[in-house]
């Protein structure tokens, strides 16, 4: 569903993402792990068409994000790590805006907006300015905006940041449900227990390069761990070794 082929992103002499190749199958949850500054957000921004790669190809649903950006973007719902939204719109107005950008039929849009607002417990606040929302509420509204146009790919950058325990639990269940319904969920996180609990496939990057990719079992095999050793130990081992190298 999502394919990155030898993708690099350079800012002057600094290389944020270095020759990264990933293949993410349709359906299921894919966790993208890395320490701070590993290049996770840069990769996500290239996948969603916000940044252009310096080299390499990113395709979503078979559409090249640089050559056919509109087709590729219409398949994606994106929730950034910092949900900067239009503060002078109400929550519902913002969702109308998103539905119109994705050219949804008005009656379908009304139905979907009610549905996502209900699901993320924002119905009560839908007519208030986003300015007055808390960080968690903004995060939930950004999730509503990503889901309202029924995307085939959901890209979530640090999904648990700013959510209270109820919100976090609800989101984890929702992500599992979306994956069961056939949506491809791509999440970037450094909350390892969330990745361990949710992900079908994982990738670990460090300084823009891929360290490991596959199921949890694949990564265990690669690091020489056996049994039910947790992801944290493997992650620390891989990233520390890469840092020393």
């Amino acid at each position: 569903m999502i394919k990155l082929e030898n993708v690099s992103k350079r800012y002057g002499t600094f290389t944020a993402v270095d020759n990264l190749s990933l293949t993410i199958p349709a359906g299921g949850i894919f966790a993208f792990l890395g320490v701070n500054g590993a290049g996770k957000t840069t990769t996500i921004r290239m996948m969603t068409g916000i940044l252009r790669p310096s080299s390499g190809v990113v395709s979503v649903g078979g559409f090249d994000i640089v050559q056919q950006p509109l087709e590729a973007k219409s398949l994606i719902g994106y929730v950034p790590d910092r949900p900067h939204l239009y503060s002078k719109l109400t929550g519902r107005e913002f969702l109308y805006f998103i539905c119109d950008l994705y050219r949804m039929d008005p009656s379908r849009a009304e139905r979907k907006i009610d549905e996502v607002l209900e699901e993320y417990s924002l119905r009560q606040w839908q007519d208030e300015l986003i300015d007055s929302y808390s960080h968690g509420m903004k995060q939930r509204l950004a999730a509503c905006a990503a889901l309202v146009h029924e995307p085939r790919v959901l890209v979530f950058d640090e999904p648990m940041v700013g959510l209270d325990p109820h919100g976090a639990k609800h989101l984890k269940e929702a992500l599992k449900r979306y994956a069961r319904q056939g949506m491809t969920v791509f999440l970037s996180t450094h909350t390892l227990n969330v990745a361990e609990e949710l992900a079908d496939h994982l990738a670990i990057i460090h300084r823009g390069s891929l360290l490991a990719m596959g199921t949890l079992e694949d990564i265990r095999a690669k690091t020489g761990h056996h049994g039910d050793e947790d992801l944290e130990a493997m992650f620390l081992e891989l990233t520390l070794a890469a840092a020393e190298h």
Partner: protein
Amino acid sequence: MQLIPLVLRPALLSLKNRHLARGARSVRESIGLLASGAMIVAMYLSTHAALQGGSSLIRSGTLDPFVPLSLLLTSLFMMLAVSAAIAAIGSLFLAKDLDLLMSSPLPMRSFLLGRSSEVALSVSWMVCVFGLPSLVAFGVFFDCGPLFFLAAPIVSLAVIAVAVLLGMLAGLLFGVVVSPQRGRTVLLMLFMLSLLLFFCSINSSSVTAKLDSGSLSAQASAISAAAHAWTPGHAWARAILDVSSGAFLSPLLVLLSACAICVSLWHVLSFVASRWHVASYTRLRNEGEILRLNSRAGQRWSRWLLPLMRSDRRALISKEFKLFARDLTHTIQLSMLLAICFIYLYNFRALEGPASMADEVRAVWELLLLLVNVGLSFLVVTCVCSRFVFPSVSLEGASFWILQSAPVSMRNILRAKVAGWFVPVAAISGVVFVSGAMAIGADEPLVVASFAVGVVLAYGLVGLSVGLGALFAQFEWEYSNQVSSNVGSFLFMAISLLFLVVNLLPIAAFFGAYALAPEIVSPQWPPSIILVAGLLALAIINYACAAAALSVGSRSLKAR
């Protein structure tokens, strides 16, 4: 570094870091700075040329040099004070770093000193571009000694400090007195009241008598009220002229008075801020939380108003206007600009040719006035565009990711901005152009043509503003007013002057052909054909300019 106010340091450091960072943006900013330099030189040359042109009037005593200088300095003072007031509202009540500053153990005086310096820096470009070169041109023209070039800037700096502190106090008082919920209503009432007062004062018998007298100086002073003894430009101009003639008593008095006023204003500012700033800031935050709107009705209205438009374009336009209408600082700026339009139209009325003029002379005079009207109206519309349309791309701010990740091309986003802004700007432009043409008593076809010219130029200007706004987009800002005072905005003003010249040539050609010699151009066709053909040519020029600017802008946004 220790001498720089603490609150100002982050702004200066980020400015330094941005300039040190390599990339296309620093190239664009360098081009902007070069253009600013060119503008300063042009301002110097044009002031000097204007003084040269009016030298015979000055020598014969018909025109007292005090009047144009006083006009210039009063305008500069007002621009500084108004801009400082708008910037002060942003920096004292709306800036993003206020939570951090309010929670730190920062004395109110340090906070105010930092904010005042920030506001002074943000409005200082007006002094550099308009004030400084004009002052130097004055000194050179009147052959003043080196003392002039030393004393005049010192006096000017003191008066500028008064303007900035006055603006700061006005901004602070506005935030303290006016509830942000009722801000728009109060502003509208203040605006109407000031127009009424202005109308009464300009219609007073003394002013009417001056307008009827033959002296150019008296007329100039009457129509602008700039030479009145109570205006700050009066004392400032008198001090500068006295320095140029070697007298230093009045400049010293002005300097001392300005310093005394500054100290008084500073104490009033500190007193008001220490008593009421925190309470006002808290109230502003609380009031935002209780605002509830009918979102469904807004959506129905936008579908009803723009029924045939594509949904993505309609969404972008309605979002633009919702955000605009809910931002208090935009309302303040809009009121100021409408006031400028009104003052311009009222003053322009005074230039109608006297009844005793011969017909041939009158025709040339009217044509000249018509072209002056086009030029000045264009500048008024440019001001509107530089404040509202040019910053519209940058005002997406940190939310720009929403548009970047949506399935809408950058070109369509910019086109939607043009479509959204064209209607209100064309309405303002049409009214200003037509009112100017009617005020000078132009023929009916020329009034209609002026309206069409206004609408066509509005399209070109809106396209240019959006395109250049995208090219110089600055998404990191503390409060919305910062965007309209950056280097790109300044470059936009410079380019729009060039755009005016490009448009004025064909307008002069077809207005001239229609008004002066229609039979030479097309003996067999009615003269109105000349106007229609000319308008078509103008429309093509403007469409091409707008399309080129949009293309450059969308490429620049895509490359980010």
